[in-house]
C-alpha cells in the first residue's frame, strides 16, 4: 500500500480479500509476457477506470503514487543508457499497471482480512514447526508501513533541501535505510509489548472465547 487506507463500502471493499488477491495474481501472470505497448496502455486505462469507479477518494489515491514516478523514470533512464528505450517503455508500463492494481487491492482491504487471506499460503510452514501467521503478519506490516516510510523520506528530503537548497538525491537512500531499520526495531518492540502475533492466529477462526477468562500458557509461542 503506497496510498492511504480507504475506508468505505464500495464494491471493491465488499469483494472478499481472497478473490481480490487471486485476481491480482492472475492479472499479474497474464500481463507478465505482454510486450505490446498498445495492449499495455489498454490495461493501464482499465486499472485507472477501477480507481475512477471509487470516485474522488479513489482518484485521490493516485496522488499518493507520485514518488513512484521517479522510480519509473529511473528505470526508463537505465534502459535509455542501454539503448533499449522500447523495451524499457513496455517494462515501465507493465510495472505501473501492476503497482496500481496491487495498491488498489491493499487500500480497499482490511489488514486482518489480508492476513487471513495470505495465511493459507504459508500453512506448510507448520510442517517444519514455524508459525504461518508470522510471515503473513510480516507482509501486512510491509503494507502498513509503506506510507510511513514515504513520510520519513519526505522529511529527510525536506531536511536535505533546507540545508543544501538542492533537490533530493541518492544520498538520502542510506539515512532512509537506517531509519527503516530503526523503525522496524521499534515496531517489533511495540508488537512484543502487546503480546506478539499470537492474537492473529485467532483472526481466521470464529470460535467464541471469553477474553477475560483466557489464560495463555507460558509455553505459547509468540
Amino acid at each position: 500500500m503506497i496510498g492511504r487506507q480507504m475506508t468505505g463500502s464500495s464494491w471493491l471493499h465488499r469483494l472478499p480479500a481472497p478473490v481480490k488477491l487471486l485476481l491480482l495474481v492472475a492479472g499479474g501472470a497474464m500481463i507478465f509476457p505482454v510486450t505490446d505497448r498498445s495492449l499495455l496502455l489498454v490495461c493501464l486505462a482499465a486499472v485507472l477506470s477501477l480507481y475512477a469507479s471509487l470516485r474522488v477518494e479513489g482518484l485521490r489515491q493516485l496522488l499518493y503514487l507520485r514518488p513512484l514516478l521517479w522510480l519509473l523514470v529511473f528505470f526508463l533512464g537505465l534502459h535509455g543508457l542501454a539503448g533499449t528505450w522500447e523495451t524499457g517503455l513496455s517494462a515501465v508500463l507493465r510495472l505501473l499497471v501492476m503497482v496500481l492494481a496491487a495498491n488498489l487491492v491493499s487500500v480497499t482491504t482490511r489488514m486482518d482480512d489480508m492476513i487471513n487471506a495470505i495465511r493459507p499460503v504459508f500453512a506448510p510452514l507448520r510442517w517444519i514447526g514455524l508459525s504461518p501467521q508470522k510471515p503473513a503478519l510480516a507482509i501486512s506490516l510491509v503494507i502498513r508501513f509503506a506510507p510511513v516510510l514515504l513520510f520519513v523520506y519526505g522529511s529527510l528530503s525536506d531536511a536535505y533541501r533546507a540545508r543544501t537548497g538542492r533537490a533530493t538525491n541518492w544520498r538520502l537512500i542510506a539515512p532512509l535505510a537506517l531509519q527503516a531499520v530503526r523503525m522496524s526495531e521499534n515496531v517489533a518492540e511495540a508488537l512484543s509489548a502487546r503480546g506478539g502475533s499470537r492474537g492473529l492466529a485467532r483472526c481466521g477462526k470464529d470460535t467464541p472465547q471469553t477474553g477475560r477468562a483466557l489464560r495463555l500458557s507460558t509455553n505459547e509461542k509468540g
Partner: protein
Amino acid sequence: MAFWAKGRSVSAAASFDLTVKTYAVFEAVSLALDGKTVLDGISLALSERRVGIVGLNGSGKSSLARLLNGLRLPTNGKVRLFGADTVSVAAQLPRHVGFVFQNPDHQAIFPTVEEEIAFGLTQIGHDRTSARAEAVGFLRRHRCEFLADKPIATLSEGQKQLVCILAVLVMQPCILVLDEPMTSLDGLAAKRILQKLQSLDQTLIMVSHDLSALTGFDRILWLEDGRIRMDGVPGDVLPAYAADLDRRAAAEVWEGDGL
C-alpha cells in the same frame, strides 16, 4: 528475539496474584545493554496508583519502564510483577501490564483505528467477528466512535496517541506503563491525554520530562546514571530535580548528556 524464532519457552508456571497491594518489586536489579550498564542495583517496591519517573536522557528511565512489561529482563537481580518473576512470565505480562510508547507511529500496527483496537481484543482471546463488534463498542464507551473507520495515518498526533492508549486499555491491563507519551504532542493535546490518563482506574507508571504532568502523582522516582537518586512524593522530588536541572544548565561546562 528474532522475529522468525520461536517464543521463549519457560518451565515455570505463571503465578500472578493480581490482588497484592505491592504490585512490583525490584530486587537489586541491574541491566546491561550492548555491554553498557544502564541500570545498576535498583531495589524498590511499588504499591502506589500513580508513579512518575524523571531523569535525563540516558539515566535509565525507559529501561526501568520496559522491565515492568517484560520487554527487558534483568541482567542481575529479580523483577517481580504481582508476585511473579518476570523471567518466568514474560509472555503473559502484556496481558496485565500495558505499555504505551513515545511515538504513536511506532506503536500502531494496523491501518485503521477499529482494526488497531480489535487486534488488542484478539490478543486476549476474542475471535475476529466479536473483536470487530467489541472494538466499535469500546470506542463508543470512550466517546471515540467517530474515529473507528479513520485511517491512523490521517489522525492528529493527539488522536494517534489516544488510539495507542485505547489499543492497550482494551486488553484490560491492571497497570499502564507510559514512556514519555506526551513528548510529540502540542499543549492542548497533551492536556487532553493527561486528563484521559488521570481518569483511568488502572495503576499508572509514567516516564515524563514534563514535570507539571506529574504533580498530582503519588510517588516520583528520579533516576541518574542508572541509579535512583531520589524517591519520594512529588512535592519533594520534583523541586529538587528542577533545581538540579537549573544548576546543570547554569554550569559553564556541558555536563553528561546535556544536549
